[in-house]
Structure formats: structure tokens, C-alpha cells
């Protein structure tokens, strides 16, 4: 098997799986309970949260566990909208967001909020002038993802924050950082809210967290009881939380070294594919090396994916989540419908080997040349 779909999801690493198993077996108490077993669980929960807080330089009470980034995006966007609708109903997002953001925006539109879409340039970078001009007195939220899941374009969050706060200090800045965690360094002081999922960093599915700066308040969208955080009541899923904490620790080591290695693999693939005139490399100077998007102009992407599937080579078209036929992100950057219809995403990881890439390119060549010969 050659797995090259790390941006869709990652396998759970051995160490993290070990934690899930041990914690499930040894920490049976509900962290909300008053007895010794509850206390034991509460202590582990506290240490797990403190570890994440220390790694990111934030406060433990700024971490709210969720079932993943989609839930966190909901909590963030709807929470800000509900808390601030008297101040304004204007929300700005980019054209490069994860589909969940647009789904939430559609809901908010249906209940009276106004959504604006900020432009980006040909490299995928946010158009700062356009952002500046779109921010108004009644703009309550800007949501721009740190790394685009299809093209890997990385946004300069600090600069975006400066622009937002210069125009309107009250506007809240949210970023979906799911594709950035474990790949590039993130400074949480650049943002007010952030969403992430564990299953992109060799952690289990079903857990992630919302970062919410202590400086802002949002309205809860989930109600219940429990002593941990009013935004996420209920029994904390301790095995998953411990796993998330460990996954974050493991993901946050040697970021630069790992990026350099993945870059070599990325360049290998690019150099190989460039030879083919009908294959477009959808990579800009802001794309991170872990995500490589291409458009195979003369073959339908689903068809090609299935051809590779035969060899147990796994890639994506668009994102795992989007159901449309056209890639919104490719349209936003290249404004080319044909290109946007034929995208394939190759996502790499620091655990990918040179051997795997070599084999992948062999198989790619075989199937691609076969496919065009049929045509």
C-alpha cells in the first residue's frame, strides 16, 4: 500500500493507540465524579490539557475539546454570531475555506447574517487591500484558514490579524488550523479562535479542540452539565483527550526538519509530473510541501483514482469532505473551470519514504500513459 492521502486522515500511531488502550483500561472514573476514581481521571485530564497549553503557549482554560474541527468551526462561528449579533451581522471568509465553514455560513445567512468573501491573488494569498476594504463597523468575524486543504496555500495569520485589528478592534479572528497543525508552526496569539482535529496528526478520529482566547466570549451552542467548560458540557472522553495531547506533543517535534524532508519528496514528484503537458501543477509559492495539488486535464480524476486504487495507491480528488465536482479553491486561485474539475490531491507526510514515492511515480507513469493511449 502507498498511502498519499494524509490530508484526508492519518493512521493512529502506535504510541497514541497505546495511550487510548491504557487510559480506557486504567481510568474508568468519570472526571466529574467526586470520589477517588473521578479524581484520578480529573488529574489526568488536567495534565493532558496542561501539556497542550504549554506546547502552544496558551492557557489551559482556552482549550475546549470537541469531536473534531467541524464541531469546533460550528462552535466558533455560530458562537460568535450569537454573542455579537447586536454589534453587527457581517462576517468575512476567504474563498479557500473547508466546506464546513461555507455550510455554517449558509445557515447563518438563512438567519439574517451577511457573508462577504475576500479575494485572493494568483498565488492564493489573501488580498490585503480587499480585506481592509471589506471590514466594516458591523463586521463581527473574519474566518480564514491557516492552510488550505486542497492546495496547501498558507496564509500569514499575523499580518491578517494586524489588518483586521487596525480596521476594527472588535472584529474577532477565527482560523481553521486543521491542515497546519503538525506541519508548520502556529502562533496562537495571532488568532482569537482556532479549530483542529486529531486525526490529521496520527491521532484518533472523533476528537479535536477549539482554541478560544480568554479575551473573547462566545455563546455556547451545546448545553448540559459538567464542571469542565460551559462550552462543552458532558463527560470528557478521557482516552481520546489523552491521545490528542500525546499526538500534539509528537506532532510538534522537529517541524523544520520534517518539512525539509517532505519538500524533497514533493520536488521529486513535481519534477516528474512537469514532463507531461496535460498535467498542471497547482502549486503556488505559498503552498506547504505536505500538500501537492495537480490537475490531470485529459482524464477524469475519479477514473484515475480508481486506476491507482488497483495498485493500492491512495489519493484524493478535491477534499474528502467536499461533494462538488469543481474544486472551489482551484477556481479561486486559477479561475479555470477545466482545471478545477480535474484536480487530484497528493498529500505527503514525514513518514512517507523515498521508496514509496519512487514506486508511486512508476505506477503513475504506467497508468497515466495507459490511460492516454486508450484515448
Amino acid at each position, binding site marked *: 500500500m502507498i498511502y498519499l492521502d494524509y490530508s484526508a486522515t492519518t493512521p493512529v500511531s502506535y504510541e497514541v493507540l497505546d495511550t487510548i488502550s491504557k487510559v480506557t483500561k486504567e481510568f474508568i472514573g468519570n472526571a466529574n465524579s467526586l470520589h477517588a476514581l473521578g*479524581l484520578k481521571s480529573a488529574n*489526568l485530564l488536567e495534565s*493532558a490539557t*496542561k501539556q497542550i497549553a504549554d506546547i502552544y*503557549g496558551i492557557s489551559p482554560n482556552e482549550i475546549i475539546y470537541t469531536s473534531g474541527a467541524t464541531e469546533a468551526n460550528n462552535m466558533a462561528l455560530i458562537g460568535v454570531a450569537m454573542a455579537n449579533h447586536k454589534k453587527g451581522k457581517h462576517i468575512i471568509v476567504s474563498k479557500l475555506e473547508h466546506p464546513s465553514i461555507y455550510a455554517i455560513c449558509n445557515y447563518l445567512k438563512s438567519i439574517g447574517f451577511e457573508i462577504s468573501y475576500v479575494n485572493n491573488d494568483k498565488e492564493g494569498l489573501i488580498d490585503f487591500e480587499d480585506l481592509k476594504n471589506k471590514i466594516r463597523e458591523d463586521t463581527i468575524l473574519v474566518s480564514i484558514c491557516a492552510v488550505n486543504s486542497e492546495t496547501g496555500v498558507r496564509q500569514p495569520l499575523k499580518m491578517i490579524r494586524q489588518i483586521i485589528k487596525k480596521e476594527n478592534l472588535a472584529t474577532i479572528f477565527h482560523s481553521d488550523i486543521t491542515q497546519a497543525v503538525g506541519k508548520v508552526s502556529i502562533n496562537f496569539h495571532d488568532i482569537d479562535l482556532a479549530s483542529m482535529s486529531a486525526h490529521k496528526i496520527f491521532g484518533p478520529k472523533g476528537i479535536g479542540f477549539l482554541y478560544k482566547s480568554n479575551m473573547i466570549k462566545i455563546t455556547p451552542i451545546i448545553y448540559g452539565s459538567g464542571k469542565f467548560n460551559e462550552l462543552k458540557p458532558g463527560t470528557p472522553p478521557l482516552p481520546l483527550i489523552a491521545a490528542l495531547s500525546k499526538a500534539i506533543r509528537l506532532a510538534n517535534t522537529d517541524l523544520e526538519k520534517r518539512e525539509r524532508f517532505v519538500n524533497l519528496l514533493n520536488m521529486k514528484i513535481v519534477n516528474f509530473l512537469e514532463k507531461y503537458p496535460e498535467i498542471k501543477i497547482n502549486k503556488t509559492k505559498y503552498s506547504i510541501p505536505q500538500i501537492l495539488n495537480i490537475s490531470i486535464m485529459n482524464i477524469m480524476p475519479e477514473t484515475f483514482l480508481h486506476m491507482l486504487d488497483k495498485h493500492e495507491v491512495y489519493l484524493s480528488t478535491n477534499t474528502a469532505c467536499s461533494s462538488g465536482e469543481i474544486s472551489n479553491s482551484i477556481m479561486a486561485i486559477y479561475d479555470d473551470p477545466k482545471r478545477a474539475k480535474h484536480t487530484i490531491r497528493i498529500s505527503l507526510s514525514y513518514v512517507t519514504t523515498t521508496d514509496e514515492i519512487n514506486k508511486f511515480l512508476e505506477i503513475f507513469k504506467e497508468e497515466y500513459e495507459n490511460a492516454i493511449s486508450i484515448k
Partner: protein
Amino acid sequence: MKKIIIIKYGELSTKKDNINFFISKLKNNISLILESIENEISYDFGRMFIKVNENDIDIVVNKLKKVFGILEIIIGYIDNELEIEKIKNNTLNLISDKNFNTFKVITKRSDKTYPINSMEINNVIGGYLLKNISNIKVDVHNPELSINIEIRKNEVLYYFNGIKGLGGYPVGTLGKGLLMLSGGIDSPVSGYMAIKRGVKIEAIYFESPPHTSEMAKEKVIKLARVLSYYNAEIKLHIINFTEIQETILKNIPHDYLITIMRRMMYRISAIIAHNNKCNILINGESIGQVASQTLTSMRAINEVIKMPVIRPLACFDKLEIIKMAKEIQTYDISTLPFEDCCTIFVPKHPVINPSLSKCEEYEKLIPYKELIHKAIKNHEVLIIKEKMENKYQDLL
């Protein structure tokens, strides 16, 4: 251009003779809290310089905000371009994202061979900024933005306004004290105030299982951990008070329960303090807050020991104490609902003006010297640090 952190000293700069001791203590304290982060510390007559990786700067500044002895934390920029044109450009770039109406340029030349003198540089830079930025003015008395430029032999250091540090004295420069730590709001705040004055603290906690719970003990450990952010680490002495408390309950008239209990706690604390080279006791007593805190009560209780007892909160009112507890982040922990041994056996009518002779008379009814000795012998000692306990190392 490289970033560097500059620290200006607080009160310790007035101690002429001891200044080297104070500075090296401060340096050691800083090294301890930056243990896990790559850093290089150097210092001169008035300031300390800390070099760290750019990614770590925010984390380090946050940690320095909790170190006593620091007056101001400033982020400086070092560049090796010495030409005046480059200095003009660099200054302009560095202030481009700042909002201000008035400014002042303060230049220092530590390298006196530099061709232009400080006054002239002030004028040249000032003029350049006025030309290139609209709507700003020079204010030599009270500028919003201070632009500091230091010209050294091979480099130029730029810095602006800094962040206020905690002030106070570096921890440990003024000896050791033992803090009587309960789970309440007051004692952690007292501990913090003592640390601020340069006292390194250890702590003592009295538990009475099963009357007090594990949760109450955890609460105290959490409070000690918050204090350890400022003190580096806290040695927590945990005394099992159950037998003493039950003996008092069975033998002493109820109105004197609290008074006698406190006398025992003072005796035990003084012995532990002495054994651990602490010269003072510290606690959170405030005049009049509860029955044992009237002046006659304080006298009747204090009388059993010779060691000085510092009560930093003696003259603060409850609202002021709560405000401080929130600032140092102990309030939320203190208000968790787990009772400590002082609150579980409260008599209906505690004596407000206890008499010394009655105290002595009642104490003859119980073998307190043996009980105290027993409680102190082999008591539990925990070292509380900011870093996570090792017990979760394989899980997290």
C-alpha cells in the same frame, strides 16, 4: 535583524553593596524557569539580555512576566548596519506598525568613536521620522513612544516601550519562610506577597482524613503549583492532623476548639520551619475576618512560639484580597468546594477573647507534646513544580 529580550531591574538596583548577589540570584531564577527553552543570558550594570529563538520569544516573555525582581521586559532588535542611513531606515521600519502621536528619540553611544554624537543622531532620526510619518510630533517630556537607539561597537540596538514586570525582589534573596497554606482564598495570596519580597517559601498543610477529602488536598497542591510559577518549586509539608483534632474535640470545651487547634498548628509549623531553615512563618490571617482573628485571639495563639509570624493580609479587606487572588489565578482554585480542617469542626460559639490562662489549663488535659511529635515524625513531603508529574509520562 535579530530580536533580543532586555530586562530592567526593579528595586534591587538600589541595593549598592548586594547588587551582584541580587543580579546573580535573578539570573539563576530566570535560568530555572527557562530550563526547557534554549537561551543565553548576559548582563551589564543595569540590565540583563536574553537571547532565544524567535519562535520562543512570546513564551519566554510570558514566563518572565512571573519573575520577581524585574521592572520592565523589553523586546529589542539588533542589527549590524552602523551607517546612519541604514539606522534611519531600520528605525522607520520598526515603528511602522505602531500607533502613536508623540515620540522621542533617545540615543546612546557606548562606542564613543562613532562619528556622530548622540544629540545629533536624535535630531537626524527625529527629523527623518517626522518627514516620513504624518501626524506625529516630538515630545521630550512625556512621549507616547520612546525610541531608544544604542550604538555599540559592531551593532545597533533598537528598543521601545516595554511591558511592566512584577517588580519586587528576586526570589530567595531575602531568606526562607514557611507558609501555612490552607485551601482558602487568603493564604495563597499571602504566600505570593512574601515571594514578592524575595522570600523563598516552603508550605505546610494540615489534613484530617477522613474528615477532609483527597480533593481538599489536591486543591492545596494545585494552589502550591500556582505559587511555584513564581517560586521555582515549593516543598509542601503535609501534616496528618486527625488524631490531634479528634483529641481536642473530645477533651476541650467547645468554645476553645479553634483557639487550641490553632495553637497546635503554630507549634507544629514553628518546628517544621526551624528544621527546614525557615526564619519566619507566613499565613493569611486578616484582622477580624473570623473569630480566631481578633487581636486577643491572635495573641493567645501566637504566644506559643517565638518565631516571627508575617501576616501580609492583616490590614486588607476581603474585596481587596479577592481581587489579588483573581490576579494571581488562585481564586478559582480556592473557591472549589472542598473543606479544609479549619472549617469542618466549627463550634457554634467560638470564644472571641480567649484567655491565656484558660488555654494553658485546657492544654494540660491532652498529651499534646507526644501528639505533635507523632504528627511531625515521618510526615509526607511533596515537591511541587510547574512541570507535569512524571506519572503520566508514558500516557501523554
